[in-house]
């Protein structure tokens, strides 16, 4: 049985094609000059450049962290190019009709037909290709509702007060090594502002794609939900198949003011490296949300890609009665390594957090959950419930759990549970005896395993996630 399950994934990474798009790319290397050039190309105001430079100074003094359960060769930060933009983007298109058809074909190949989305699905999309936002759809319609959804490079120019107030408020420049780097060299990302009491009329979505080689992608996203508002945001990611590792060090900050709600969903399918573990994206991301009184932030993620994943979508539950949720399915196969989880910091009274993390390991991968639940001294009546389940497919992979629990308040309650299981021989035999082949059986069982998380995803994503998981597991049984 183990032999059956053991086969390494034969599946070809579907998004692994390279698009031949002429681009402007900086020479590799990082120094103050590079940052100034990025700022200049983006036509940023002085204060933004200063902010970046301060971050760069911080970064120079920091050390790359090494405590995660992942191992990788040292990154040469001087060998990365920090900016790349398709040439045809020199003049920013105002609508899809003006976008280079080549670029649109890239997205179509990825199964993201923008026109269709625009017309039928009614999902507003911000499309980021390498370091630039290609187009943001539905802007006019959103504007009517008062919703701002645009690339952050524009927001810096058009809505400086908002950006100044909130950028770095949730993830300070000095928070960690990769956040500092991102703060210095971020090139684009999404900016969202939902005004008071508004329920955003459609789901907002961003697709990131790293195309140009030897570049790093450092996107920065800032979502602000003003009092009593609601927004659901979807993030999807892909990258071509390359032999070298590419770095994706993003920062996502969410601010949910009193009574506001933000739902942030990610389906991540970055290139995971080939069957020998060569190449693949290093996904080192800092995602954090701040909740004020009665606010709620939900993080839902399905991670199947990246050679290495290092991310802990977190919630700072500052306001009383605020709620933080984290639902995650992380699949690792081949030689992938993941060290991911969530941090829930309970500061306010009666705050509540739920963490449901499902890890599936196959091949020779390692899948670790790292979480922090912190109950501050003032968190009277706070509650946390954490459930971590690992499913091992084959006997050469690893599943790990490192939950940190810190409590400073007697009235706060923390409950953590972790289990480990495998697709048992009996279960597989039952399915096969009922006519299902082993792959189908495993796919069904894994889906059942992930149910609790999938039902938290917005509809479109749930379907995509299910399919992605099924495709990812193909070949894990021989």
């Amino acid at each position, binding site marked *: 049985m183990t032999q059956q399950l053991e086969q390494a994934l034969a599946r070809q990474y579907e998004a692994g094609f390279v698009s031949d798009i002429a681009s402007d790319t900086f020479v590799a290397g990082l120094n103050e000059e590079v940052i100034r050039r990025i700022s200049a190309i983006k036509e940023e105001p002085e204060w933004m450049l200063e902010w970046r430079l301060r971050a760069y100074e911080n970064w120079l003094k920091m050390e790359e962290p090494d405590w995660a359960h992942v191992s990788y060769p040292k990154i040469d930060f001087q060998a990365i190019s920090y900016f790349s933009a398709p040439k045809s983007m020199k003049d920013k298109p105002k609508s899809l009709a003006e976008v280079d058809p080549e670029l649109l074909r890239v997205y179509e190949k990825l199964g993201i037909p923008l026109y269709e989305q625009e017309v039928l699905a009614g999902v507003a999309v911000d499309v980021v290709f390498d370091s630039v936002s290609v187009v943001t759809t539905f802007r006019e319609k959103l504007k009517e509702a008062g919703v701002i959804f645009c690339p952050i490079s524009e927001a810096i120019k058009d809505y400086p007060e908002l950006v100044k107030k909130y950028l770095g408020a949730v993830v300070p420049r000095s928070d960690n090594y990769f956040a500092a780097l991102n703060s210095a060299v971020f090139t684009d990302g999404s900016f969202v502002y939902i005004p008071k009491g508004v329920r955003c009329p459609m789901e907002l979505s961003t697709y990131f794609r790293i195309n140009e080689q030897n570049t790093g992608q450092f996107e920065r996203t800032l979502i602000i939900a003003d009092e009593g508002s609601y927004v659901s945001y979807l993030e999807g990611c892909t990258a071509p198949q390359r032999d070298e590792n590419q770095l994706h060090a993003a920062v996502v900050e969410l601010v949910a003011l009193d009574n506001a709600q933000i739902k942030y969903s990610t389906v991540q399918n970055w290139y995971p490296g080939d069957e020998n573990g060569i190449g693949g994206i290093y996904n080192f991301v800092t995602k954090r949300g701040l909740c004020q009184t009665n606010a709620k932030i939900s993080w839902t993620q399905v991670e199947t890609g990246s050679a290495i994943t290092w991310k802990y979508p977190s919630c700072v539950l500052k306001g009383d009665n605020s709620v933080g949720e984290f639902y995650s399915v992380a699949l690792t196969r081949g030689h992938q390594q993941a060290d991911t989880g969530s941090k829930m910091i309970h500061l306010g009274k009666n705050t509540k957090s739920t963490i449901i993390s499902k890890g599936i390991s196959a091949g020779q991968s390692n899948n670790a959950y790292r979480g922090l639940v912190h109950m501050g001294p003032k968190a009277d009546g706070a509650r946390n419930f954490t459930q971590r389940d690992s499913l091992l497919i084959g006997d050469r992979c690893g599943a790990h759990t490192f939950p940190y629990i810190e409590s400073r308040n007697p009235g706060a309650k923390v409950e953590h549970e972790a289990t480990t299981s495998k697709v048992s*021989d009996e*279960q597989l*035999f*039952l399915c*096969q005896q*009922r*006519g299902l082949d082993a792959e189908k059986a495993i796919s069904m069982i894994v889906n*059942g395993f992930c149910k609790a998380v999938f039902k938290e995803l917005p509809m479109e994503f749930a379907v995509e996630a299910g399919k992605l998981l099924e495709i990812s597991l193909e070949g894990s049984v021989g």
Partner: protein
Amino acid sequence: MLTIKNLHARVEQIQILNGLDLIINPGEVHAIMGPNGAGKSTLGYVLSGREGYDVTEGEVHFKDENLLALDIEQRARHGLFLAFQYPVEIPGVSNMEFLKESVNAMRLHRRQEPLSASDFLKAAKTACQQVQLPLDFLKRGVNEGFSGGEKKRNEIMQMILLEPSLCILDESDSGLDVDALQVVANGVNSQRNATRSFVIITHYQRLLDYIQPDFVHILANGKIVKSGTAALAQQIEKEGYAFLNTATSLEIKA
């Protein structure tokens, strides 16, 4: 339908089947009885193709195909059904989803159109009623939290929906009270016809009061030591297996 010739099989280096012969024709119901450890369940597992059960000698033909050359799911799609003695739980996977996939896999093999969601639901409802399982069982995980009796009835329900050619029932009566026993028996009897065959593996004669077998075989020491009609089962009921010691000159470990 099924021809077994000189079957030798072992599990974990222990030889369990030692030259078993059996012929089953379409429409027949065969009961296999015998003392514990004789190899009754092993026969079921070997026929279904379970990993860890190695055939060391012999041939098996199922509907003119060399059964031993087929994978587990190929044997199932070809029409072989094994009702387990201890059905396993698969939490998170609903009975509904599981059955639908299975039914459609069978249909695909038979070159039939897959059932639409509503047609499947209709069929599932009927099957549920037949085995007296409430409809909401379909929503629960496969065998999740089911009692022993409910698990056995679930097995019969699957048999009804999958329409197999050969049904092997491995101790489908163990642990059941009289009512549940009747439900199981009714389920089996309702599926009897001229083209479908049954192998009923049982330790006790009780089930055979409800499902009249055409033939009864005694499996001991890894082979069939005696065959007869339903009367043979009665004899075992009265005298146990010891009488075999005189009948054959083998020592039966009962």
